[in-house]
């Protein structure tokens, strides 16, 4: 996507991940993830029954997604919000730009939102001559660095404190100390100026309750509250699967989301918006627009990837993934990273992007276990492999192999041949293994021969 510098270069996931594991600064920064791993696990372990309930709510929603969306649309409209439906990322960008232009917006403040990353909204706003400012501290750092978030909850997880200082000091135009409090204070003061002058606030949505017409936003810093409080216009970009049938369902999903995301029992701020500014109120937006974003989601309904729409973007699968924990988000070169990104990136791009991502998994199933809504991510990764050109090319070889091994006689013959040939296989064919590991050799006498000798 345009507008972002690729921070971990390489033509594919393999090359980028190899570079990532060899980057000592990145490896140092990533050790910080281990802390989150433990706290999130503790919270999740405390309430195992929540997962069942949450998974059931998400499945109920997906079973009639269009119906719930229609109900949500009516409820939001009843409360004075404007609903727009965007079929594609292009549609969503156009809708947002039209609203922004209609209000003569010049400064746009953005809350952290994966959906707006997905449609690369910041770039579109800048191209239309507006200043689009990321206001989540991590996102702000990443934006200033010309990069893309590397983790959906902690966007600047790939950076060490001295690196963050360098980015902020460059923007400040003067020295800043390598000190958390001082850097935070500087960013707070700088972004406050932007909040006060912004004409438009843009956020995502964590949940939207169809029964009450309520948008739920989960934040910790307070920037999301600014984006929905001070600007005259607020646009919430909501991927269609964010709908939940009832506000009561949010009581189940919310602590599960925050527990898995950060280990918090509840996020610091939970904002429930049920309309624009009310009569007689002095703050809150005059207009509140909600953009329903499809972008190839509803086509997944009824397929074996439907469950992926249950995802609540908590990042738990990233935090437990041994591959993610060593390569970090940029290696994926996609908006969504980690196990969920390996599944979602090819799906949302119709196979055009990230086709190689599913192969970069050891299929250890830690993601399946971590997922608070029980999405079988590792199994989806295997299913996605089967649909790739790589797998199609290899299929004749696998077919030949399986034909041979479906017969005990040819199994014996081929393995006997392999035993003889193993010592003569050119090492370069096995370089993937042998560059860092010794090659195990077949036993001279296989198990079955020894069994025969002992039992005949």
């Amino acid at each position, binding site marked *: 996507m345009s507008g972002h510098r690729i921070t971990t270069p390489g033509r594919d996931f393999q090359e980028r991940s190899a570079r990532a594991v060899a980057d000592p600064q990145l490896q140092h920064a990533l050790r910080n993830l281990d802390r989150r791993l433990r706290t999130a696990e503790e919270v999740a372990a405390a309430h195992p029954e929540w997962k069942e309930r949450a998974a059931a709510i998400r499945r109920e929603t997906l079973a009639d997604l269009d119906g719930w969306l229609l109900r949500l649309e009516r409820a939001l409209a009843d409360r004075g919000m404007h609903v727009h439906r965007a079929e594609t990322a292009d549609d969503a960008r156009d809708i947002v730009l039209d609203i922004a232009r209609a209000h003569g917006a010049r400064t746009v403040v953005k809350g952290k939102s994966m959906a707006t990353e997905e449609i690369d909204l910041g770039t579109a706003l800048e191209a239309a001559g507006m200043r689009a400012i990321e206001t989540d501290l991590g996102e702000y750092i990443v934006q200033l660095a010309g990069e893309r978030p590397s983790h959906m909850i902690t966007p600047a997880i790939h950076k060490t404190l001295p690196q963050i200082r360098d980015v902020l000091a460059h923007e400040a135009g003067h020295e800043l100390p390598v000190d958390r409090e001082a850097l935070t204070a500087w960013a707070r003061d700088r972004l406050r100026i932007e909040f006060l002058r912004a004409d438009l606030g843009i956020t995502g949505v964590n949940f939207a309750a169809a029964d009450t017409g309520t948008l739920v936003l989960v934040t910790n810093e307070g920037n999301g509250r600014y984006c929905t409080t001070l600007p005259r216009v607020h646009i919430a970009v909501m991927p269609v699967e964010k709908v939940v049938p009832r506000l009561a369902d949010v009581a189940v999903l919310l602590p599960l989301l925050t527990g898995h995301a950060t280990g918090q029992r509840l996020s610091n701020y939970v904002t429930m918006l049920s309309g624009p500014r009310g009569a007689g109120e002095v703050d809150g937006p005059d207009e509140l627009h909600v953009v329903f974003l499809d972008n190839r989601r509803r086509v997944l309904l009824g397929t074996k990837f439907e469950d992926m729409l249950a995802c609540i973007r908590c990042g738990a699968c990233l935090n437990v993934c041994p591959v993610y924990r060593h390569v970090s988000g940029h290696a994926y070169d996609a908006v969504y990273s980690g196990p969920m990104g390996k599944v979602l990136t090819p799906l949302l791009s119709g196979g055009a992007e990230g086709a190689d991502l599913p192969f970069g998994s050891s299929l250890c*199933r830690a993601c399946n276990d971590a997922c608070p809504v029980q999405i079988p991510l590792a199994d989806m990764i295997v299913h996605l492999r089967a649909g790739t050109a790589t797998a199609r090319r290899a299929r004749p070889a696998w077919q030949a192999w*399986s034909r041979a091994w479906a017969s005990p006689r040819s*199994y014996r013959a081929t393995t006997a041949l392999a035993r003889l040939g193993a010592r003569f296989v050119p090492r370069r064919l096995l370089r993937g293994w042998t560059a860092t590991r010794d090659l195990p050799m077949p036993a001279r006498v296989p*198990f079955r021969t020894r069994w025969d000798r002992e039992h005949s």
Partner: protein
Amino acid sequence: MTARIALFVTCVADQLFPDTGIATVRVLESAGARVEFPEAQTCCGQPAYTAGAPDAAARLARHHLDVFAPYDAIVTPSGSCAAMVRLHFAELVPDRRDEVAALAARTFELSEYLVDVLGVDDVGARVEVPVTIHDACHGLRGLRVADAPRTLLRRAGATIVEMTEADTCCGFGGVFSLGYPEVSTRLADAKLEHARATETRWLVSTDLACLMHLDARRKRTREPGPQPVHLADLLASGLPK
């Protein structure tokens, strides 16, 4: 009528680690089980399945189903191969749903079979050494086997020193180890580091593929640390001759 117990040795043990196959039989026999070896068995098809060739995998799944259908229990020294049967055969052979379900219900990883099915905690082995355990991914998260190997080792007199992140992947992952050697090796190194910190003699697991991977890395680096060993081999080494 006595129960018929089949050894599902796996292609990896058959071709690369036959000693572990022999050890598995010895351990099962010392627990009172009489084991048969269905000679027509080959491979469960997992390599093709995970490579994205489900048709090829299905062919071997059908063969596996035919070979093992007559047995009351199918026991294997690989959590991963047992998980293949239990978790993925249903999807590969949808037209034989009942047979698959029946086979899946009778297929067990070795330690799981001993402890949870036979109720044998003590196989009569003495292994009075400090050990650490790597919970192989598919045994742990596919079959939910975590306590059984520990129970067996403890009853055999071993002192278990748990390593940090015993439940984290060793980085093998089949084709992943060939396609992503840098990440795969980094994971193996992390695992070996954690194992080394326990200052034990053996790094025990219930999956030969993980052990093969860790041992191959260890041989290359020549770093000290506990020797990777299959649970069956370690227990068999402590059985009376």
